């Protein structure tokens, strides 16, 4: 969050970053269409135009992957801390840009417009707009839209909020955050793409995950090795014992997760358990195994 900037400046900077990305990739016709729509939306005279333009975006400008260069990524991160547009497509960037164009200095009006647009959005529109959350003004007012997104039964909509998105770790309460993290595992999704995961570990989350692991074990089901990432610093001797058993008997991925967790657990028993598996201990300490490398 850049409290030193007025939001109008942030919005115009962010718009210029998105437009620069798109200008390099779109045909002159497509870019002209986009600029024309932005100009209409910016006047605020035609409130329905935002929804129309967002709907038409893929057919006007296509759905190719953005595939940003490293420099472009960095410019994005400079315009908005933590912005990660990996996996974005041109229509998604355009839809976010169109939504930003509807901001006319009034936070409440912007949030209401976003809510209206999302209320009738088809699935692709929802994914795009939720990926845009970190770029939008009025971050506090749009929180209900983010929460609604992680409540979705549609995994790609859930992941549009949860993955590669700095918004949740900045704005979710502990209860909201914990629900999101547990649900990520519950639906078989990945924790690694969640931003700010380690910084928001908390005792309540650890307890929920420990209970969830017990439930899975009782049902004879596998436990994601990623689960232990949010448990490790808060583990008790019982969890250390469970991790020791995984390190001994698990699959390669499970053993890697257990080793990482034991390394991050402050209990002396965890240290000695890891030391008794020198191969894994070495792989963790020299960075060959990290939470991002676990499949």
């Amino acid at each position, binding site marked *: 969050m850049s409290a030193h900037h007025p939001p109008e400046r942030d919005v115009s900077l962010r718009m210029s970053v998105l437009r620069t990305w798109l200008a390099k990739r779109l045909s002159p016709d497509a870019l002209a269409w986009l600029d024309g729509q932005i100009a209409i939306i910016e006047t605020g005279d035609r409130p329905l135009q935002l929804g129309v333009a967002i709907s038409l975006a893929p057919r006007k400008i296509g759905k190719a992957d953005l595939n940003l260069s490293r420099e472009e990524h960095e410019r994005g991160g400079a315009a908005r801390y933590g912005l990660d547009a990996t996996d974005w497509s041109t229509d998604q960037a355009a839809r976010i840009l169109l939504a930003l164009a509807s901001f006319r200095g009034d936070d409440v009006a912007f949030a209401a417009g976003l809510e209206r647009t999302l209320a009738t959005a088809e699935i692709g*529109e929802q994914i795009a707009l939720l990926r845009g959350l970190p770029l939008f003004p009025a971050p506090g007012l749009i929180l209900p839209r983010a929460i609604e997104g992680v409540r979705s039964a549609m995994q790609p909509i859930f992941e549009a909020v949860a993955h590669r998105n700095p918004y949740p770790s900045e704005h979710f309460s502990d209860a909201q955050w914990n629900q999101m993290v547990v649900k990520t595992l519950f639906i078989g999704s990945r924790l690694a793409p969640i931003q700010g995961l380690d910084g928001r570990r908390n005792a309540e989350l650890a307890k929920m995950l420990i209970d969830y692991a017990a439930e899975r074990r009782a049902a004879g089901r596998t436990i994601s090795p990623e689960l232990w990432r949010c448990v490790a610093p808060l583990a008790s001797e019982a969890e250390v014992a469970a991790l020791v058993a995984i390190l001994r008997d698990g699959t390669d991925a499970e053993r890697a997760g257990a080793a990482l967790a034991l390394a991050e657990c402050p209990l002396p028993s965890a240290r000695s358990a890891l030391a008794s598996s020198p191969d894994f201990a070495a792989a963790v300490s020299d960075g060959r195994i990290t939470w991002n490398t676990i499949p």
Partner: protein
Amino acid sequence: MFIDPHAHMISRTTDDYEAMAKAGVVAVIEPAFWIGQARTNVGSYKDYLSHILGFERFRAGQFGVRHYCCVGLNSKEANNEALAEGVMEILPGFATKEGVVAIGEIGYDEQTALEDKYFRLQLDLARELDLPVMIHTPHRDKKRGASRSMDVILEHKLDPSRVVIDHVNEETIQEVKDRGFWAAFSIYPHSKMTAERMVALVKGFGAERLIVDSACDWGVSDPLSVPKTAALMAEQGLAEEDVRLVTYANALAVYGKSGQMAEADWLAPPPIDQRTLYQGNTVLRGGQAPRVADIDAKLD
């Protein structure tokens, strides 16, 4: 590969999706319809349209089936004027969304004045937006109802090559073909049209502009009607190309005129769709068993 160009998947189970994908159905078209009881306000209609364009598309994609929609005000609910007015206001916004291939299913039920009014308004909308149209022909007084539908469509200056007349039978096929429309047949286990009769119709009239669909919904209906009819046609000696036309290519040709449906959608989907909306059809991937990963974990 098959296309089922009339399937109310919102009323069907995951077993159906699995079976359809396994049988080679690569795409379905879900027309907006009457859900078995009347909606009482435009809010429920709006949420219904969002649902078929949202959650239903997601469900289909999980099973490797591409999902498209027709949006429209059905004839039964056109008789609730307050609702109908509200729906007409929201319809243009939905009609321009991605994956909307037609205005439909629209037409007559009891052939009331209100049905006529909203039918005509929606034909105008289709013309303005340059979208194909799917026409529901009435179950009662079908022959005259179908005839009247075609009169009104031509009166509103729509090109019949962009209009599908659905639920056609032996009584209505001749006029539909003569007037240049596409003729779709809903193959039902008990009523409307059976696979055996369909075979005879293709033999008699040729495959040109004929389309087979299941019109599966919340009633007794069969989501495998299209592949089953194709199998029967092959068994009874129809040419492979004719089978392909009526169970795949004709539907693609007419609804593809929307610019929102193309073979590449399932044969070479854009990477963004593969990452998010479309798991890929196991039949296209070489026929291994459909992957239904932890379905119970998704019942959240």
